[in-house]
């Protein structure tokens, strides 16, 4: 048994006192003198203090070196190039482990795993110390040949020096005989994910794409084909706040693919496709895999561009894999993919909204944006015949740049036709010099190729014409339906004027949202019928009518005034009560984007209002911060406030208070709720809301508070909802808007749960953390 390292309790305090004081003395002689004089004759004390002091240097070093840090972690960091599926050659015992030494590299941490290998972060120990990425190929392949292939290309790889390319540093074999590659460590996320997470708009995406093209071009000039261009091989890192692309895995696909060519198949014994089919060029998919050149990379770049713009690849991966090897090959080699703008048209409404949201544009605008130039650029890169593609990555980058500069792009078909004619002309001139016979021969050849091109053009033309015709037919149908709908609306409006609401409601029940189109008349009919259904307590129907009102309102993209927001609170509230939260969410997103730049305080207030009915998502609230500023400034600025009525200002103060409450800022929420109550305006439902917010905020600040405001809120709620539930509906003759009453009720119910959990439910403490969703009381009482 060891002795306790610390002095016994009796002298502990004293020893520590002297120890701490002594540490502050820099000179060791003076320190020793101080210890001696302080301890006097107490030998035990002195031994204890000296013991502590003597270990100080070691302690300091120990704690300094032990300061905990987190090393880069998490699988998202670097992703492996998935070239070959694991064919079960590797058993668990073969796998390398963290801490293992491979050549000059010490494995630190596994950072990714792909079909063909595992990527580790490793520490290189000589000749320089640095962190690198080390990729061990899983496949049980002929390591010597892989390395030999790599060595053959090594010279070329070493010449690559480009800021957007991760360098390949080394290759070798592990102790278990598997090949590995060492490359520059890139910490980043794949390009598609980065763009979506940062909601980059199409132009920002194109800028990044141009960087990728330049990197690929650089490699091509050094004689290196990537062969596996896809999002997981193109990472984005942040360089002083500027996103920079890094292309990884150059040279690896080739070194590995040599192996697979021996049996000339793209499939392993398990019939799995080698590589990532959706990014693979037709010639790579074909049997003639040997004949791959730089233009295969151009095709893959085209797929990448397609995905950056539409969020989808031209051919769906699952469909490709499901269709089986032969069918897949046929698809890749023969089937013409949809143009990007057409692809967007085929998305579901919620998919489209999400895709557009991730690109910071409105759904309709996104389609318009892609139509034309971008469609042509993408389709030219995706040509099945590689001689029709862009011939270089720079060519592709330049054309994208043309688009960004608003210059004509060369991908337009007439130009291609023109270029071919030029070619024929040049050849003719050449052969006149060579001789008559050759001339005749070449003329024939030139004509036939010219005819071939002509036919190709004609076929394209036909496709275009057919699409045109389909569109015309579609438009005609739409116009016809709209005309029919218009007639119905006139009839419905007449019925409403005569008070025959239920007949009007039946009349318009069948009309579908897309048939409506923007129309003031239709909007008025739906508004009336929405309100009527609310009065009847028919919430499902009310939500449907209000959703159609939203379609009929179809807001003018440039209109960011409050006029465009007027119906939104009623529409969204109807959706909430009917339980249609997915449409509610979609509307919030669309309107948040639409009004992001508004400067109209009333519009800002309305958007804040509809977003805070329920507990909102954090990122939505962050998006709304500028709007909150506008609303709040208009209240704080005396001059601006003097121009508006007290009632308007009171409502705005309420919206600001709600926003602060949802952000979790209780004191500001309480302050603004009080301000709302100070305005000389007696809209009762608003006053109830202000009391409810005040009660909750005060309760959060001090759990004893909030009771008085709860009582005040309840008195008002009682006048309209005696049972504190919606009941049979909200008659039109109620003073104030129906949706404001429901907002007040929802808030009051939320406050009841927050402030008086004990009286509301037995298990109060667990309820406290439940997010306030639509209260059960509402949904169950109405259906």
């Amino acid at each position: 048994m060891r002795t306790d390292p610390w002095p016994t309790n009796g002298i502990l305090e004293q020893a520590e006192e002297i120890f701490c004081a002594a540490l502050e003395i820099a000179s060791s002689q003076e320190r020793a003198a101080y210890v001696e004089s302080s301890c006097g004759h107490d030998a035990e004390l002195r031994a204890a203090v000296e013991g502590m002091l003597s270990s100080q240097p070691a302690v300091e070093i120990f704690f300094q070196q032990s300061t905990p840090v987190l090393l880069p972690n998490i699988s998202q960091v670097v992703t492996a190039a998935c070239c070959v599926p694991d064919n079960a050659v590797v058993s668990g015992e073969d796998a390398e482990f963290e801490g293992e030494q491979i050549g000059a590299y010490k494995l630190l941490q596994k950072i990714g795993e792909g079909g063909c290998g595992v990527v580790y972060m490793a520490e290189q120990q000589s000749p320089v110390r640095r962190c690198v990425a080390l990729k061990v190929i899983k496949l049980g392949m002929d390591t010597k040949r892989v390395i030999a292939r790599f060595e053959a290309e090594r010279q070329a790889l070493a010449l690559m020096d480009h800021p957007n390319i991760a360098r390949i540093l080394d290759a070798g074999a592990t102790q278990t005989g598997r090949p590995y590659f060492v490359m520059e460590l890139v910490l980043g996320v794949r390009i598609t994910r980065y763009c979506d997470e940062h909601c980059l708009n199409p132009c920002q995406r194109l800028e990044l794409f141009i960087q990728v093209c330049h990197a690929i071009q650089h490699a091509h000039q050094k004689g290196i084909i990537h062969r596996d261009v896809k999002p997981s091989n193109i990472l984005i890192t942040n360089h002083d706040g500027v996103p920079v692309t890094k292309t990884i895995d150059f040279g690896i696909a080739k070194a590995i693919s040599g192996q697979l060519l021996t049996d000339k198949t793209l499939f392993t014994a398990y019939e799995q496709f080698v590589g990532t089919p959706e990014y693979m060029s037709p010639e790579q998919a074909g049997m003639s895999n040997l004949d791959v050149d730089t233009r295969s990379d151009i095709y893959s770049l085209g797929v990448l561009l397609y995905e950056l713009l539409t969020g989808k690849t031209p051919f769906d991966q699952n469909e490709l894999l499901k269709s089986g090897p032969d069918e897949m090959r046929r698809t890749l080699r023969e089937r013409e993919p949809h143009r990007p703008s057409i692809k967007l048209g085929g998305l579901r409404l919620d998919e489209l909204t999400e895709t557009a949201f991730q690109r910071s544009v409105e759904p309709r605008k996104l389609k318009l944006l892609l139509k034309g130039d971008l469609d042509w650029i993408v389709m030219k890169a995706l040509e099945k015949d590689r001689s029709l593609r862009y011939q270089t990555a720079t060519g592709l980058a330049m054309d994208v740049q043309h688009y960004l500069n608003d210059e004509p792009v060369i991908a337009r078909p007439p130009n291609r036709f023109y270029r071919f004619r030029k070619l024929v002309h040049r050849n003719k001139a050449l052969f006149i010099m060579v001789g008559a016979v050759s001339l005749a021969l070449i003329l024939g050849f030139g004509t036939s190729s010219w005819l071939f091109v002509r036919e190709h053009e004609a076929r394209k033309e036909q496709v275009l014409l057919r699409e045109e015709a389909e569109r015309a037919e579609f438009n005609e149908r739409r116009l016809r339906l709209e005309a029919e709908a218009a007639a119905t609306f006139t009839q419905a409006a007449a019925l409403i004027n005569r008070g025959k609401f239920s007949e009007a409601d039946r009349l318009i029940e069948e009309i579908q949202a897309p048939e409506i189109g923007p129309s003031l008349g239709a909007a008025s009919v739906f508004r009336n019928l929405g309100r009527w259904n609310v009065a009847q307590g028919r919430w499902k129907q009310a939500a449907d009518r209000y959703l159609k009102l939203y379609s009929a309102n179809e807001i003018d993209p440039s209109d960011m005034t409050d006029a465009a927001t007027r119906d939104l609170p009623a529409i969204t509230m109807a959706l909430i009560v009917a339980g249609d939260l997915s449409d509610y969410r979609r509307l919030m997103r669309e309107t948040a984007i639409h009004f992001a730049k508004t400067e109209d305080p009333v519009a800002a207030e309305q958007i804040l209002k509809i977003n805070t009915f329920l507990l909102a998502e954090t990122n939505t609230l962050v998006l709304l911060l500028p709007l909150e500023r506008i609303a709040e400034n208009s209240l704080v600025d005396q001059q601006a406030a003097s121009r508006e009525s007290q009632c308007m200002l009171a409502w705005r103060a309420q919206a600001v208070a709600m926003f602060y409450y949802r952000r979790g800022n209780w004191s500001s929420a309480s302050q603004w709720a009080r301000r709302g109550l100070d305005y000389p305006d007696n809209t009762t439902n608003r006053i109830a809301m202000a009391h409810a917010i005040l009660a909750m905020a005060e309760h959060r600040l001090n759990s004893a508070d909030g009771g008085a405001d709860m009582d005040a809120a309840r008195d008002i709620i009682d006048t309209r909802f005696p049972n504190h539930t919606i009941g049979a509906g909200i008659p039109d003759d109620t003073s104030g808007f129906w949706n404001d009453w429901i907002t007040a009720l929802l808030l009051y119910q939320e406050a009841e749960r927050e402030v008086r959990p004990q009286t509301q439910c037995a298990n109060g403490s667990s309820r406290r953390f439940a997010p306030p969703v639509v209260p059960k009381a509402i949904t169950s009482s109405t259906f």
Partner: protein
Amino acid sequence: MSETAMLLNPDTANDVAAADQLMTLMYDELRHLAAARMANESSGHTLQPTALVHEVWLRLVAGGIERNWKDRAYFYNAAAEAMRRILIDHARRKSRLKHGGDQQRFNIDNFDLSVAPADERTLLINGALEELERVHPERARVVLLKFFGGMTNKETAETTGISERSVNRHWICARTWLFKRIESHAP
């Protein structure tokens, strides 16, 4: 957001269950943040706990308004405890991998303190800290906040409510105690 804010309010969340929930929340939040920050860093970068804790504070709670020290202390205590858990998990996982065994603790007998990798040292300190918690809880808390939470003396003083001078003294004495404790376990 609102849930976090509620948990972070010492008035509404002063029971044990809430403190536990806050810890779990902080644990997730810190890990997510660490992952996100790592993704944007250049190669070879390491993350200091102090940066993480402060950023989480700014992101989650402050919301542009300075909160009072009571909230802050409550937050920092939970954050430091969560950070400790993360670091220990991290270190345990790695040292387990290196030493092959699954449950087996590494053998301390043939172990030299001065060359032990940082992960293993972190584990040793954590073990000794658990002992210190039993004999001198206040001092152990200073170590928790400073060592695992990455806080300065000033922040530690605000969080624990003792003077900066005492914090410094606790820290110096505690780390010497911990070191001797670890040393006395090793041969």
